[in-house]
């Protein structure tokens, strides 16, 4: 059995992990065109070559509000349901295998994180919350715990 690869990053100071099979690339975004009348976590549109990414602010999605002042954002690029998205993260540390796989969450996590975190992944002795990018695209409220 080949070990699954994970992307390790951080959002709002919290270490997170995303299955590498979900993502396409990590890029530094250029200008973001803001979109009126959309929910707060939709930061806007960004061009990646001839593709247009819908930029999702994961922090804003989780906590309901985010910092809009930053520019040159770091984003994880992924296609979800035939649309291209850029998921904003604070930093990216590594892509590597997690020999111990996904483990159940121990302890009670912040309710804000609860709908998104589906497990823990360990890297270099630290636990990372496992997130699924697709959960950040679906309308809020319909997000379910990934099995």
């Amino acid at each position, binding site marked *: 059995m080949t070990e699954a690869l994970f992307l390790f990053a951080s959002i709002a100071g919290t270490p997170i992990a995303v299955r590498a099979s979900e993502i396409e690339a990590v890029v530094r975004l250029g200008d973001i065109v803001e979109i009126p009348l959309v929910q707060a976590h939709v930061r806007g549109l960004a061009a990646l070559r001839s593709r*247009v990414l819908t930029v999702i602010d994961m922090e804003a999605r989780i906590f309901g509000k985010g910092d809009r002042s930053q520019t040159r954002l770091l984003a994880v690029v992924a296609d979800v349901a035939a649309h291209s998205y850029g998921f904003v993260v604070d930093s990216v540390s590594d892509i590597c295998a997690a020999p111990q796989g996904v483990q159940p969450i121990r302890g009670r996590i912040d309710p804000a994180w609860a709908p998104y975190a589906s497990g823990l992944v360990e890297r270099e002795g630290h636990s990372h919350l496992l997130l699924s990018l697709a959960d950040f695209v679906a309308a809020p409220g319909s997000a379910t715990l990934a099995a």
Partner: protein
Amino acid sequence: MDEILGEFIAETLETLDALSGEVVAWEADPAEKSRLDAFFRFFHTVKGSCGFLNLPRFEKLAHHAEEVLASIRQGDRVPDPATVTAVLAVMDRIGALARSIGEDEQIPESEDDPLLDALTANSKILSDGFEIFEPLPAKAAPLAIIEDDESKVETAPADQSARNNGSGRERAPRTIRLPLALIDQLMNGISDMVLARNDLARRMRESSAAPDLESSFERLSANVADLRDMISKTRMQRVDRLYAAIPRMVRDLTRDLGKKATLDLDGGDVEMDREMIEMVVDPLTHIVRNALDHGIETPAERIAAGKPETGELRVVARQSGNQIVIEIGDDGRGINRAALVEKAITAGLYSAVDAASLTDAEKLNLIFHPGLTTAAKVTSISGRGVGMDVVRANIEQIGGVIGIISDQGLGTTITMRVPLTLTIIPGLIVRSGDHFFAMPRGNVVELLHQNSAMVAIEEVGGARIATIRGERHALVDLEDVLKIERAEITGPRTLMVIRSSVGQPYVLGVQAVESNEELVIRPASPAINSAGVFAGMTLPDNGQPMLLLDAAGLAQVARLPLRETEGRSRQTAPQAEAVQRVETIQALMYRERDGKHRLIPLAVVDRVEDLAADQITTCDGLAFARIEHRLVPALNTQGSEADTPKSLRLHAGQDQICYLIDDVIDIIEVPAKVDAALATGRLAGLVMVGETQYEMIDPFTLFAEVTQHRGEPMGTTQPIRCLIADESDPWMRSILAPLLVQAGHEVSFGTAATGSPDIILRTEAHAVHATGDVPVLTLREDAASTAATPDSIYRYDRAEIMAAIAQAVRRVA
């Protein structure tokens, strides 16, 4: 037409190829429903397309085969091997005929009869049937499948290709079919290339590259642009192509059916994905046939129903957000729900109890069910109830939706909505502060400046109304709808008259319309669509993503009334007018300052405005109103004005008059001819409006009056077109240009002689290539004429400049 024919052939052969695999399976189990349906559909489609293309021979063959299959479907006939063989023989003949279109050598039509006989024959004559179509010429090669004659299979294709290389080659342009995915990839590749080119161009400008490098880049750049245009064209076609065959079909069908109908085609310039057009041709043909056959009644029936003898058939295509909407409407008898329900019960779809609880919409939707039709008898045109289920299957296959609205006795409208993915549409780029949005040009009826003479904006009970040429529209500002901040601007805002697929036209105020571009629209992600005002997104050449506005969505978010209440009345109005045959004009009813109600033709009224009292001056017995640095003659002044008198600004060509009034009352339709001509003084005569008669002003006398007072005609001189050569020069741009404009001249900037200027103005520093005999006027900075050029003029010598311009132009003339 040739293109459509070519496609028909290609499509028929393709379907035949696909079906040939099913033939054996069908023979093994002829009663199998899905295969039977597939064959049935094939014949029906061929029949439909042939009517469309006027190929009676195909139509006849297909019709008979379809009839046989229909009776098998209904269980009236057993699909015995003889029948199957006969049907397949017809199929092959259709294939052979399709291949022979455009070639000189044709299978004689008389040879079709044995095939048709075989179809209708019972099994006794079966063995004869075989022999009858055996001695066919080699061109009917596919017959070999049935005959199982190997030598024919081998020789026929060779024969065929030889002929193709000969006479057939010039007829049809050579085409190949490509997978659309490949074209999509090409398209994406080109888009990347264009963006890379733009980036490179920007960098080259910044680093001021060597001229020879620049020229080779220019060449590359032009190539990329051409290439992109070509690739874009591979996918897009105008809806016109869909329409091409409809008029002929309507003409032929109405003649065959003994009916009368007018055809109204609209929106032919909407562009659609080629694939979409291919998918929509058949459904559209079916629906138009149905409308003529079942919808529109015979002239006698129509007259009996109190309708005009001639029916009306409308086909309208338009883009609505990220969809193309094609509407086929008739004013016929509508769909008979009771008959549909009865058929559904007979077919065992519903029990009588269930059927009673169906909603009206559900009843209507029964028409899309396979095997149901309201037609009492089967004709060669339609009526087997296959059309609509095929139509729906085709539309849904491309992700579209089909809807039907039918009023019993009033007509039926069928709406096909197909998606617009990867569609290129012309769009207007509008600006609101830092935001840029695209609006499909198809939705924009008209663009106006907010201060245009044709617009009057008022606020009534919170609603903003823009009256444009007498028509009232709801007015909303884009910034308000999108809840974004409104930027402070100096110039007037732009008003766009928007027509969306639903509801009434409305006026959208935007900060400015920046440009007009061809945009490749992609679907936006659900998070963006949830806002309800965006139809898609696009990436223009500057690399900044942009959202496409959805005209209907904006109206919805702005809570504009969407229901088209005028629809019916508008349809009946022209008829009523036609009966009376009275020509009308629009007239403005207003109250004179003495309280009398009068009319003035609306065409001469430029705008209604409130003047400030100090704007009006009397000078030597004649009053003038000062409007935007000009003096306009004013009529009806009462010495020194108080408050803010209302004024009608009248215009006739270059002349303008302010006609002071008490108030505006209404805009009404009046007969163009006055009922009692007076022709004395300012009045043209009396006009009857309802129960009252009004005096109609004769605008001509007003202008004559003013001109007479002034003694000389106003502003009849042609404006002079001035070209300012060095646009970067701040003095030229901000001092000279306004001066020239104020003097009534037209000003343009640039080095090239765009728009054939009458005179070119330049500074000493800027060399100008004299083009033709256009005079060049040099302006110097020093007051003394010591400069090199002798004919230069000091740039602050205004009188001299104006005189020189006038003189230079006169010299040319």
